[in-house]
């Protein structure tokens, strides 16, 4: 979606609900990706994603277009605020890491394709790694990689200097790589012992 199209859809969405569907289709995977990483229960994540879009609908009249990134930043700020509230309410509550939490709700008894299983495994592995970072770095990493936001948009949402966002991003990735390598090494050692 080009910025011109996005501008047009936002303008139209105020009078024609169908225009919002294009925005929804464009932003759903990104909002979902970000929220899903920040909230470990699938059900809670789905509730939050729904809340983001309903809040956006209610606030659309008040939204003012300023620059290309402003709608994305506005939408993700809603998501970010909801996640902050969520964690505040669930402080001290242990994370739900149910093994079946991510099983798609399919009525079909057909086995899940290998690709889907592999993707789910990759996600879980990365989610556990990211959870070891500081909350600030978790925010930056997930907004950048799964929300698809640029550093200037992240800095606007988190109220940080753009260079600080870049530094968090770099160190976050380096930390993740170090921990990932250490885990692989530990697994290799265990396998050799067994």
């Amino acid at each position, binding site marked *: 979606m080009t910025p011109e199209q996005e501008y047009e859809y936002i303008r139209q*969405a105020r*009078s*024609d*609900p*169908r225009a*919002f*569907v294009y925005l*929804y*289709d464009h932003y*759903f*995977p990104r909002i*979902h*990706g970000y929220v*899903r*990483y920040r909230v470990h229960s*699938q059900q809670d994540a*789905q509730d939050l*994603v*729904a809340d983001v*879009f*309903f809040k956006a*609908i*209610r606030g659309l009249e008040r939204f003012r277009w300023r620059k290309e990134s402003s709608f994305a930043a506005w939408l993700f700020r809603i998501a970010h605020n909801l996640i902050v509230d969520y964690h505040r309410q669930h402080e001290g509550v242990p994370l739900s890491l149910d093994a079946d939490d*991510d099983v*798609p*709700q*399919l*009525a*079909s008894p057909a086995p899940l394709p290998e690709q*889907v299983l592999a*993707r*789910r495994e*990759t*996600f879980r*592995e*990365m*989610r556990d790694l990211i959870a070891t970072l500081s909350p600030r770095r978790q925010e930056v*990493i997930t907004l*950048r*990689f*799964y929300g*698809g936001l640029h*550093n200037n948009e992240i800095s606007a949402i988190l109220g940080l200097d753009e260079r600080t966002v*870049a*530094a968090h*991003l*770099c160190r976050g*990735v*380096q930390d*993740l*790589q170090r921990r*990932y390598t250490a885990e692989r090494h530990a697994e290799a050692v265990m396998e050799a012992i067994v």
Partner: protein
Amino acid sequence: MSMQDYRDTRTDEQILLDGVERAISERSQAGHADEARYGFVARVANATPPVNESFQRTLRARVVAELEKDAVGRQATVQDRLRTRGLRRLSLVGGLATILILVSAFVLWSRVWVWEPEMETGAPTAAPVAQLAPGDVDALADRLNGEPAPRTVAVFPGGYAGVLAERVQHPVVPLSLGADLTPAAIRAALGAVLPSSGLIDVVIVNQDAADAVQQVRAVLEQQLYRLYRSGEATTEAFGALERNQFVVAPKEVALEPVGAVFEGGIELVAAGVLDDPRPGEPLRLAFDWRVAEHVGDSLVMFAHLVRDGSHLVAQRDAVPGNGLFPVESWEPGEVVRDQFALQLPPELPPGEYEIQVGVYSATSGQRYRLVEPEEEVYMVVWRFAVEGGDDVTGL
């Protein structure tokens, strides 16, 4: 130029940030970032969480419904404001003029208020439950619940979806339209609730808004693949409720040129078989037709799946578009797409199968013969063989 001129002067941080940028960009465009090129950064980028498609679809339908509710609410608020302002101003004017203006304004306002629902899609404004016979709703719900294959149930007008959602085990989504009933607008509304694949049952409530219903029907026939099941009507009525079974269309359809010409200049331009034949599954077919001149006869297009040259396995004999696009209405030279799905039986015995396509007169039953390429009464557009154990081989 020395080697030093080529030296990368970026800092490690800049190199990493550039890698992040490129990996995310590649994932967005190609669906996957190359781990050989971007290393661990690509691994992080590719670890997107799996999406529950059913949730995505249901939320999209809820979002559309919420927006339409808001749009109606906003319209009412604007009217209230206008009315209030008008009354304030009128209070400043005394005597007979005020009364006359008030009466005129009231008459005008009343007419607008009364007309407004008609300018919508005919979606019911009162509680729809009261307007439908409970027995009909229950009978339809039982029919849908008896279907073992998962499916989405879309309801038009969308206001009736809640009645069915309470009783039907499959996901029920409202097909809600605004005042715009152009095919593009209907396609957009349909696209908002459509699953990416699989079966979709569209329940049309034939209460009112006949024009809107006809428009929706035409778009459904063009956008989806109507499912024909052996021994069953493709449309089932339960009082005012009408069940239509469809299969979702793929994103892209590539048809193979055929160029078979039947008597009367009726040409089968191209044909496409979109699925591998699997027992118990739908087989989607698409045909492009063209007429050289106006056709006066009422024609039926048939597609027969035949085993070993004589056993009819599945068939569809119908006026294109389930009767909505009769050949008599086609303009010469215009290519018309006829698309549908055949429900294959639960078992496909070993043998050689072929799909025979042709035309016959609805009035006389007389088949039209092929002029080109040979004098037959049908064109074989596809062949396949089933060996023991339902193994399918293309011929």
